[in-house]
């Protein structure tokens, strides 16, 4: 394990009396894909929310060796921690390209001054087209985000998370809404993103996708981390099989 990448130590989130994450310790090293699985309500989204600063948490969160738990969400993003949302959360009234540009070019006072005095005549499409290329959606750049199918919206979410440059990607069920063919293509893309550098945390209910693409798998149940190991170990681990893989491994959405 290196210092690089995302590391949490004893991450704990409480919603009232409910312990939604109970001392979760996860390492997402650069270039690796870590799967986070567990039944509905296990606390997977909560983990992503806590790590990215959208919900209060206790415990340590380190990005490239630096504590980031005190930073507001947007600073964690600029520090290189990028996420997608289970519910898509695109900017529906903007085009796909603009959605990506939002992430690539955050505003600010200096941006304001530049907008007034030296506007960028031509939008440099590089960032946009490269990110869209990665998720295989190059042809929808000018479509309004809300006119896309749910599956496409999720993929655009991934592209948006990539657009500003990212050290670690946290993908919350990005493949929900894809059919099994598209899902397999998506797995290949996830792999190639990881190979190009960033670490990836992948949440999905599609076991074949997760076990197929991940280097490490962590299983959550009622907020507790009940297993961490390779996919091969997960397939044979009795607790995992009992808790989550009891159903046939191919089972997709819960």
């Amino acid at each position, binding site marked *: 394990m290196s210092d690089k990448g995302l590391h949490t130590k004893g991450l704990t989130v409480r919603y009232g009396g409910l312990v939604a994450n109970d001392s979760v310790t996860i390492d997402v090293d650069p270039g690796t894909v870590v799967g986070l699985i567990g039944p509905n309500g296990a606390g997977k989204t909560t983990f992503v929310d806590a790590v990215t600063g959208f919900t209060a948490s206790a415990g340590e969160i380190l990005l490239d060796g630096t504590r980031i738990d005190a930073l507001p969400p947007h600073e964690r993003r600029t520090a290189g921690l990028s996420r997608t949302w289970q519910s898509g*959360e695109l900017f529906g009234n903007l085009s796909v390209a603009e959605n990506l540009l939002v992430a690539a070019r955050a505003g600010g006072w200096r941006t304001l001054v530049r907008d007034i005095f030296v506007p960028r005549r031509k939008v440099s499409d590089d960032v946009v087209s490269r990110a869209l290329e990665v998720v295989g959606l190059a042809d929808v750049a000018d479509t309004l985000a809300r006119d896309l199918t749910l599956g496409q919206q999720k993929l655009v979410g991934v592209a948006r998370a990539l657009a*500003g440059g990212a050290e670690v990607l946290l993908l919350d069920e990005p493949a929900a809404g894809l059919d099994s063919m598209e899902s397999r293509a998506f797995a290949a893309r996830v792999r190639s993103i990881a190979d190009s550098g960033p670490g990836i945390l992948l949440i999905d209910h599609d076991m074949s996708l997760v076990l197929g693409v991940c280097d490490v798998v962590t299983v959550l149940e009622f907020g507790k981390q009940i297993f961490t190991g390779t996919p091969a170990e997960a397939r044979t681990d009795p607790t995992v099989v009992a808790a989550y893989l009891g159903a046939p491994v191919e089972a997709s959405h819960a």
Partner: protein
Amino acid sequence: MGTFLQFVVLGLGLGSIYIGLGTGLLLVHRATGIINFAQGAMAMWGAYVFAQLRVDGTLVFPIGSIEFARRPPIEVAALIGILTAFVLGLVVHYLVFRPVRHAPVLAQVVVSVAVMITIQALVVLRFGPNNIDVASILPEGSISVLGTDLPTREIIMAAIMVVLAAAVWAYLRFTRAGVATRAASENERAAVLMGFSPDRLAAVAQVVAVVLGTISVMLGSSLTGLNPDNYTLLVVPALAVLLVARMESIAVVVVAALLLGAFQSVIGLLVTKSWWPVWAQSGLDQVIPFAVVMVILFVQGKRLPSRGSLQTIRLPDVSIPKLKPVPAVILLVLGVAALSFTQGTWRFGVTTSIIVMLLALSYVVLTGYLGQISLAQGAFAGAAGFALSKMTSAWGVPFPLSLILSALVATALGMLVALPAFRIRGAQLAIITIAAALAIERFVFNNYTLSPPEGNPIADATLFGLNLGVREGRDLARISFSVMVLVIAAILVWVFIRVASGDTGRTFLAVRANERAAASSGIDVRKTKLIGFAISAFIAGIAGCLIGFSRGQLSAESFTVFAGLQVLAVAYLGGITSVGGAIVAGVLGPLGIVYTLLRGVFDLGEYYALISGLGLIITAILNPVGIAGATREQVAWVRRRLSRSGPPPSTVPDAPAPKEPSRV
């Protein structure tokens, strides 16, 4: 001590009105999720009817009136007043609030502001702008407590209102309909399951709210007389009370209302003391509700229950503007032509339209692009105007610098008002901005130590020896002044288009669409709001300075809260998401071209406020994209039609898929 106690009790009269308005606000919010900014205005109408009956026996309707030979007895007059309130509640519910019950928060805020403007304008038309006396239903008298004579009227008033509020509490608490009303505020289906129509429940709530408010105003106004502006704006302290009660507890509404009334009364006593600083004598009673609102929102901002809080404000689509040279030149030429072929009041009207266009543009930035509701734009303009007066006449700052520095004063104020927007949004932000606007108007603009009653003179602008003053001899609107206004406006529109079509504009739209997603994309949402408020207030500030130059002097009346609301009305009417909308708003705006027409040609100037209020109600209900947006959609529709029936497109790429006109 005795005087102190007397003033506390005197304040109960005002407190009673706050109970009436606050309980009504709570009830309506409970039943419909709407915060009704028109609560004060609606409660005032019935009280006016009552008062007028007692003054000269005339029963006044919105249109027409009946004159009784003898003044009806006070009980009959009161009953007629309450009946009027009943009808008003029903009418407003079914015609106005029901159609927007599922509309986004912005439309609901705008609709209730429109009702407020409309009723206030109607009161001025039908009953006159001045204070009228109100007969007292309750006997005058006093009781002696601890050796101090205390007036009984205020005490009885408060007691009556407490009992009525308790009745509303009991209704919500113990009747099935009341329980269903509370359930409906969380989930309309729950009310349906209990066998009630949420709509019927909302109508009941609206009627009860208006009647309650009317009774409180009928009682309370006997102490001071009725006045259209003051009573309309009593909704602001009542909203403060509502927030203190977290929009939930009637008991807290009652206590907070009485405390606030008493506190304001005691402040009225204290400011007359010799040790009280002179500069803080005026308007402190309005600063208090504002301070209360601020503290409450900061302490519990995120926890305030609000049906609208989960749903981000949805607004009409924005088409990102492009700087097109040809239309720009055409518009400029049109502007110059309009200015050079007119003179006197007409040219003044055109010039004012250009200035109002800028005010509307400040709404386009803040509300159209950033999705934040501000009712304080008039105060931003005013702050700059007053700063300009100081700079030009007291300090002799030369022209373009004085303009820019004054606008920067407004910018600073805008950034201050942006702070609450960090924590709250939607209707609650509207509450805090209107409270801020009122506090600024009363505490600063009306403050004789800061703004002398004889007016704040503004020296004419000169640039390189060129006289840019508005008047000379009998010329009311010199062309050089008007052209200066046009040039400044053109520069600002040009800057706006650059910002709106640049990275900043995109960031605004992202924040407007989804704050969470924006933050997760690396956008500093707070800083973005700060920037939005700054730009918007700067534009409003320039407009305020131009208004100042055009008048030659300013007084508190130049920038009332109502003037600000009227500009919101026309901005929304024109279309709050585009420059085109701002231009339409300018043409329609107060003292602008349409106003000059109404006054000069049709002799209908006094109906202007009423017409703009009604126009806004209709727009907010039927056509949320405003006039400019509707025109754009129609043009797009016609184009699609033409391109489809025309020759097969050879070089032209396919027209975009036909899209429904956006609805909110």
